[in-house]
């Protein structure tokens, strides 16, 4: 297989081969750094950081969640209490901070408004909580605003690990709050799953149908060859173009027609004539048809000719051969296609932007109200969440940790799917080669 099989220890050319090795090294380094960046920052978003009391040179006192040190030695820290300071973050050089300490009773309160509160807790009343700012000024907070209280400086190592897991858990099952800058991604997770399920229901049967036609039923004419080239090429058509088609044909065309026929009373307010999870799923299905077709065809080809001939020789009809011999044999290929399609749909954002994704949806497209599944509703999506929060949040700096966390979550999902698909495909290919 390899040019080195003769046992030659040397590349034989020195510099050229080394440069090629360098290219591999650079690509690998890119992979490692990218994954490390996303997973470390994503994980760090939930790591409880201690609160450090900063006595600044100008006499003010702040409790700071120290985030990172800059090349010039200054430290960027979150100082909370936005309604009192006007800003969430502070960058202070070493000469500006006169003294640093870690008071054990420093409290971090997550609240529904104004981001976290850093200070000291005097009394947790039923109506109002009496608190002190880091410099000792007393303030009050309505009890209804309080979500969670923690004393990060009292946490031991185990406590922190526990807090980290709890944080990850809340991130997954909670709703976002404060313009998506805090809270969790549950609605986005639900939206992504619903989109992917709807899409799979559409793309897998039809993709398999198309692949079976191309591979089993169609004769090898110029038309079929042309169609195969076309299907292959459609995999390379930009995803945004599918979005354009989804908006123009599905939403304005089909959706508009449905509205005129069945929801005329609601017009001009559109029901199906606006973006929604159904249209997004259909668009995604179109986008992923080539993926499923190509993978299924590979799976179909992996079924040995002898098995087909044996089936036919035993008197099976074509359909019986297909059902009992070919499709079971092609199952890994079909599965690979389905997984790759799901992974593509989970990560693709551009066509969704035209077909119904929103940064914040008041309601889930699936809930307890009849008819339970609201296919015309707009929905949230993990990938779009990254774009929406990272670029449209009022305070991007404050939202950044959660964007990294969302990206890490999405990446983990997609990687898991892709790894499974790669394994499965390796199995199909081995069978193809072993034939």
């Amino acid at each position: 297989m390899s040019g080195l099989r003769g046992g030659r220890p040397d590349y034989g050319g020195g510099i050229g081969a080394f440069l090629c090795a360098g290219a591999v090294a650079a690509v690998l380094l890119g992979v490692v750094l990218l994954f490390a960046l996303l997973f470390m920052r994503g994980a760090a978003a939930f790591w409880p950081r201690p609160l450090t009391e900063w006595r600044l040179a100008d006499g003010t006192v702040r409790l700071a969640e120290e985030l990172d040190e800059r090349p010039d030695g200054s430290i960027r820290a979150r100082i909370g209490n936005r309604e009192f300071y006007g800003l969430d973050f502070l960058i202070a050089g070493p000469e500006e901070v006169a003294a640093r300490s870690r008071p054990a009773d420093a409290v971090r309160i997550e609240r529904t408004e104004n981001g976290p509160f850093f200070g000291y807790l005097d009394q947790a009343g039923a109506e109002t909580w009496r608190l002190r700012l880091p410099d000792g000024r007393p303030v009050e907070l309505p009890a209804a605003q309080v979500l969670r209280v923690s004393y990060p400086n009292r946490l031991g190592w185990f406590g922190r690990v526990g807090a980290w897991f709890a944080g990850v858990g809340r991130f997954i099952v909670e709703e976002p709050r404060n313009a998506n800058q805090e809270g969790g991604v549950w609605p986005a997770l639900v939206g992504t799953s619903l989109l992917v399920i709807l899409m799979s229901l559409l793309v897998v049967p039809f993709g398999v149908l198309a692949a079976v036609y191309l591979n089993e039923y169609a004769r090898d004419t110029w038309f079929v060859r042309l169609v195969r080239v076309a299907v292959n090429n459609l995999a390379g058509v930009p995803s945004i173009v599918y979005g354009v088609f989804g908006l123009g044909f599905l939403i304005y065309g089909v959706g508009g027609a449905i509205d005129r026929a069945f929801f005329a009373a609601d017009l001009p307010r559109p029901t199906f004539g606006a973006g929604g999870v159904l249209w997004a799923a259909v668009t995604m299905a179109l986008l992923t048809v080539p993926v499923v077709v190509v993978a299924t065809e590979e799976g179909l080809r992996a079924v040995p000719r002898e098995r087909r001939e044996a089936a036919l020789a035993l008197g099976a009809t074509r359909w019986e051969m297909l059902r009992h011999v070919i499709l079971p044999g092609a199952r890994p290929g079909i599965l690979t296609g389905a997984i790759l399609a799901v992974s593509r749909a989970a990560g693709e954002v551009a066509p969704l932007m035209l077909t119904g994704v929103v940064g914040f949806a008041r309601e889930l497209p699936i809930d307890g109200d009849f008819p339970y599944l609201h296919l015309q509703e707009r929905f949230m999506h993990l990938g779009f969440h990254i774009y929406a929060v990272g670029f449209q949040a009022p305070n991007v700096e404050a939202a950044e940790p959660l964007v990294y966390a969302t990206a890490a979550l999405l990446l983990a999902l997609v990687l898991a799917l892709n790894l499974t698909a790669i394994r499965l495909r390796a199995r199909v290919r081995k069978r193809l080669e072993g034939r």
Partner: protein
Amino acid sequence: MTSSPSFRRRRAADRAVAALVRFGGVGVVLAVLFIAFYLVREALPLAAAPKLEESGRRLPAVAAPVAVGVEDFTEALWELHRDGRLVLRDVADGAELDAAAPLALGPGETVVEARLSPDQATLAVATSSGRLAALPLAFAVDYDDDLERSHRLEETTPRWLIEEGDGPLAAFSVLAEDATVWGAAVRGDGALELVRGRIKVNRLTGAERLSRKVLRLAEPGPITDLALLEGGAVLAGFADGGLAAWRADRPFNKLEECGRTPAGAAVRQIQPLIGAGSALVARADGAVERWMMVAPETGRPILDEAAEMSEAVPGLRLLAPSTRQRVFFALADRELRIGHATAAEYLAAVRLPAGVERVLPSPREDHLLLIGADWVEVRGLELGYPGVTARTLFARIQYEGSPAPAWTWQSTGGSDAYEPKISLVPLILGTFKGTLWALLPSIPLAVLGALFTARFLRGRAREIVKPAVELLAGIPSVILGFVGALYLAPAMQDRMLAVFLLPFVLVLLTVVLAVGWARLPLPSRRRLHEGWAPFLLMAVYAAVGAALLRAGPGLEQALLGAPFREWAPAALGLPFEQRNAAVVGLAMGFAVTPLIFTLAEDAFRNVPETLAEASLALGATPWQTSVRVIFPPALPGVVAAVMLGLGRAVGETMIVLMATGNTSITRLNIFQGFRALSANLAVELPEAPHGESLYRTLFLSALLLFAFTFLVNTAAETIRVRGRKEL
């Protein structure tokens, strides 16, 4: 053949499935191909020419009016008569609906001429005694119980800009802006006057008062027509064909000349366009030019010719502007041309009946009035998408207020009077700019890496590299865009120099290592490397790269004397933005490299091993074998891989959307961002009104993307298949 019931059932099932599969399979394939057809279908109406009905309703005018027009629905016709009466009539039967006399003319005074503003909201009225008024036109609609419309005149008061007449005006123009009404006229004594009327509203009584200021130029020359442009600039044409423009100076003390042109064909008419940002000048020889005031970077605005219509109209008599766009109607002897001022060309020509003296579009541009001496004919008009032509899409155009022709994409503005700028050139250029900077690092990395992986990596090392690259290929582009914009962009802006030096430093380092390696004694070489060199190099690269990037800001200070982002604009004349093409190139490189890598690796692996074995047996080194024996037959496959990478980069949306500033510029400067076709679609299409010009233009750009990637992919596939056949 037995024909038992069970066999028949089985045969029926078999046939049914065969039919279903054929139908479904062909259906799915056609459905996907339908996308291309649909894009064409949506974009095609852009090419249609404006259409005017062959014939229309003709109704006689009661007495030859000075001015005629219709209200929004083209259901009522208004007429301004010589005696100052305004009459509203039903278009269907000519019955009088309403009448008023808002002008309150003096005894014996008549209306001599009236000119309608392009938006048809103001009528400039000149009287026999030489007085000039701006008469606002407004119509009210009442709905009865059956939702039937009826029309009436809304009460208006004229704003007299010249109150004391001294004989008929030779030329005049009126321009209503927010709280200012401008008037310009050549008075009976030959002097040019500019009047600025400020509308002051008494807060208590609500009463309106016009406070006027007048500037006078005693001997301007023989002016044949004039028009007021934005901000009260006066554009006048002379009998000898020359043009001149004046503006009031800052404290409004005198008229300053801002441009004068040499003589030419006599000026017949000067017609401002909607928004008064530019005016059309019609000449005696049928030529039509577009003129505007252009503000240079310093100093006063000056008169500038933006464009001349592509052809002259023989027998040109009169121009009429449309109410919402830069379309105009040029009336010639028995012929009507429909032209577009931005495109600077005529889009349609229509034969007209005899006796048409004037034409006027309805306010909604869905009808055209043909006005004769004592009749008015209403014809249906379909303008289509006149603002979208090959010229407006691809040619350099001097838009209103810009000093020079340029390719600009700025599709929507604040008001109806905004001139859409829909050049696709900056978007196409932006797309290729992003692609260029993405492919530049990706191609060598991916191709060389693939060669090494295919030829030199074995066993475990291979099992690490290949899946790692495939996983990289699966990363959602929104994540790459986010990393590019929020991590790479701020990090790179402080150490741009180091980023650019890094590849050279690493290449140099590799060469040094390679040379050093060759000097090692053979046994230690043998022990050290089993194709694991990439992993050793990785560690070296990480260490050196980290050191270089850490030193980056200091390096810039030491070498350039300033941070690079300040040095580049000053020393190289290249503006610097944080989210620039270098960031996109790097972020998109993560998406493109694994794609090229995987496909190129396949190409290298597809070369039969027998070739390599023959070469090695003849004494060639593995490296010589790779370069001279394996590479040439694999080249078609590698080219195909690069082309597919190109296709991917061209269509990539999220990375480009997030990691650039999305400003549409036509510079290839790597330190600035750009706006790509794909990102433009994502940003603008959701907001574009369904079915209108912008919507269809965006579909056209989607079609361009589709066609380009489809062609590139087909070419790549063809090259790949050919190359494989040759093996």
